[in-house]
């Protein structure tokens, strides 16, 4: 490169002067920020006279769990509508004890923003941060992967923003990774194990050899652990457990070894599109027509959803699993919700939609009860809160780990569906007392109220 003699050189003095000026200009946001910070008592507190509050709905819109995410978003929109007094009110009419008035929350209309978690922790946290820092949300809800839920829950604790988890089934969410600012209405793998155990014993006996295919992340790990604990308690043997990556698409390389493993039961710890793929491929490989050790080969999908049943079609008929909620339930709350959701979107809600809807209402109700949006007070209103009429019978938010306790449904893929949505048959409604466990078994620490 050429050396130009006429190149101007900046002397030290000039450089320093300019640097100071730049520094001053650049630091002005600090002062703005400081002035702002003094006026508010907590992050994103609604300003006096503000007519709306904003909630953030962070769901997977792409990836293996996109179907669930789309349904969750529908439920959130419906919940916001009902909170603002539009529509027929859905479960707000059956929810008790309710402090909701149908005029928003604490007199402020509810607005919302949405984001795509991409079922990736990084993307989900970026999206949640945008909601908190840019859109000023008071509460974040959503998620269809426990990995994401745990990552966002940790962030929310750090930022001092409420997190009402959507669909997350890992024991860790309210176990070793529980947080003061995070609440889960959905059930978990431990409860699935306790609910499924007796039914498995009744239908398949005590002498079985199980083979696990497991989604390789927190949810898969804890579900495998809980199901193993249950089945081994029945006297079953575990032949092998194999971890599969999330969103693998093709599971044939994992299925072929099962044929020669001597196992007579396959347990699929998969969810969403993963489960649809692995189940369909297992059936195509002829697993269900096989006889091993003189018994029919059986497949179990511990965590079920109607959306998955829709995707898996006939392959799912007769297969056992559990769900948090099903639209075919006949209590008042479920009926009101199904009616309202069906009117709005033309199809019944999934369990993911149900839990997200309930979580939004529960948050709004807690704010009404506390009389403020100040998170520590809202948290106290939610801890130990007992309610009914939300589709699961009598339910309690346990204060020790922020886990909801309620009945769990054991279901079977319907062999004679009467409609395209009538895909799951309820085998047993396992009472809450049968799935309860000690909050201390998973360890973990909720952390402080004030952050």
């Amino acid at each position, binding site marked *: *490169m050429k050396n130009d003699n006429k190149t101007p050189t*900046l002397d030290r003095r000039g450089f320093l002067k300019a640097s100071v000026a730049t520094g001053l200009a*650049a630091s002005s*946001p600090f002062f703005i920020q400081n002035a702002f910070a003094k006026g508010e008592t907590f992050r994103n507190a609604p300003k006096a006279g503000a007519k709306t509050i904003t909630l953030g709905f962070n769901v997977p819109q*792409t990836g293996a769990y996109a179907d669930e995410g789309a349904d969750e978003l529908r439920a959130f929109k419906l919940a916001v509508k009902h909170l603002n007094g539009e529509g027929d009110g859905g479960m707000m009419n059956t929810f008790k004890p309710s402090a909701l008035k149908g005029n928003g929350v604490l007199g402020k209309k509810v607005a919302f923003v949405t984001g795509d978690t991409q079922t990736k922790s990084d993307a989900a946290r970026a999206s949640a941060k*945008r909601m908190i820092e840019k859109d000023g949300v008071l509460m974040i809800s959503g998620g269809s992967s426990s990995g994401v839920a745990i*990552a966002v829950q940790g962030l929310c604790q750090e930022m001092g923003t409420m997190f009402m988890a959507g669909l997350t089934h890992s024991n860790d969410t309210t176990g070793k990774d529980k947080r003061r600012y995070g609440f889960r209405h959905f059930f978990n793998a431990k409860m699935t194990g306790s609910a499924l155990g007796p039914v498995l014993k009744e239908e398949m006996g005590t002498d079985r050899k199980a083979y696990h295919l497991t989604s390789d*992340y927190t949810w898969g790990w804890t579900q495998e652990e809980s199901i193993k604990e249950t089945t081994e308690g029945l006297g079953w043997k575990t032949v092998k457990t194999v*971890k599969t990556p*999330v969103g693998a698409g093709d599971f044939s390389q994992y299925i072929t070894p099962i044929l020669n493993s001597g196992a007579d039961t396959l347990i699929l710890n998969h969810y969403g599109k993963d489960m649809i793929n692995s189940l369909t491929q297992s059936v195509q490989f002829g697993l269900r027509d096989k006889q091993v050790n003189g018994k029919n080969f059986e497949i179990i999908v511990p965590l079920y959803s109607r959306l998955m049943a829709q995707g898996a079609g006939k392959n799912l008929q007769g297969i056992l699993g559990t769900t948090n909620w099903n639209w075919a339930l006949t209590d008042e709350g479920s009926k009101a919700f199904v009616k309202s959701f069906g009117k709005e979107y033309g199809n019944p809600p999934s369990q993911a939609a149900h839990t997200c809807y309930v979580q939004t209402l529960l948050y709004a109700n807690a704010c009404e009860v506390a009389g403020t949006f100040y998170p520590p007070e809202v948290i106290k209103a939610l801890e130990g809160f007992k309610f009914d009429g939300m589709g699961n019978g009598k339910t309690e938010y346990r204060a020790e780990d922020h886990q909801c306790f309620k009945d769990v449904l054991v279901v079977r893929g319907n062999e004679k569906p009467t409609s395209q949505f009538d895909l799951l048959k309820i085998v047993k409604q396992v009472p809450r007392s049968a799935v309860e466990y000690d909050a201390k078994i998973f360890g973990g620490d909720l952390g402080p109220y004030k952050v």
Partner: protein
Amino acid sequence: MFKKILASNPLIMLIFSAVVLSAPIWLAPFGANYPDLLQKFAIFGIFAVGYNILFGLTGYLSFGHATFLGIGSYTAVWSFKLLTMNILPAIVLAMIVSGLFAVVIGYLSLRRSGIYFSILTLAFAQMAYSLAYSVLTPITNGETGLQVSQQDPRVLDAMAGIAVTDGIPSTNLFGALIKSQGGYYGFYVAAVLLIIAFYISLKIFRSPFGMKLRAIKSNQTRMKYTGFNTKPYLLTAFVISGMYAGLAGGLLASIDPLAGAERMQWTASGEVVLMTILGGVGTLIGPLLGTTLIKYFENIFSALNDSELHSMFSFMPEGLQNIMVTVVSPFVGEGWHLTLGLVFMIVVIFLPGGIMQGLTHLFNFVKRLVGLGGSNKVIDNMAANDTPNNTLNKHKGEA
């Protein structure tokens, strides 16, 4: 005048620093001035600037640079777990460890050039990703991601008498919390590092070393025939850019102490290639422009929904408004990839030199419009300063 500005390093740095540090102000009209996105701009800016040292100067297209980003993040989080919550050791360690990995991967991959080099780096990246995702779960915590916990030993903090009693500790720089000032402090830390990183890159671009790297890009065979061993130079460039990526990874973890395997996925490696090409390969500022554009799309465009579009077009009459929303909505929200793809196509087809080439054209046009004679040369010089091709082809005589 341009010529003078562009030739003077301190002046460039001054303007650059002013622009970077005042980003919270001038990004406000775009709705992009919230701390998280600002931090992303700065951090991925470092990543792209470093990547450009390899790809822009030597023309070696690495498809596995996210590996070093991931390694940097994991190293930093382990430093938070084992040593201290201070980010300085974390960042330094992140750079050292990713640099070591870059030496090994670079040494092996640089035995080939062209497409074979790209494939080799991609293979290493996929290996690293799979390792982090499942095999090395005890170190990386797999898909769930590595997080800091209250019970971690933190030897240095313990020696200094800092005990954690209440929840998970936050990262700090000698006591000042990174998340303080509503997150702006974290941005300024990253911004200062970006300025330093940019300065080093500028120095490399304008050094004999940079010249040799450009020569490799232009005609490596010829260089070898003249008795020049190109390997050490290539490896040095590879390691430098790997350390830049490690720095970016360490910073990501410093601002948000979580490291996940998806950070190393091939899509992440592809992203930095896109950033660089979109902005302008081999130009100083180009990669930064590309970064800003892509991160802006990813964070702002992806979050627009129908109701926001309606309010955006609310100045139109009802019918027209609905039409506009219908037309635009597939391109925002979940469709942001589509928009990015279109922009990328347009840039690659019409402006192979990236946004920087577009800006050069624009400058030329304005200059001609204003009627300042002889301006063409000035602008060409501006490009010549940074793009090797132009230098070698057009200005042989001048140099």
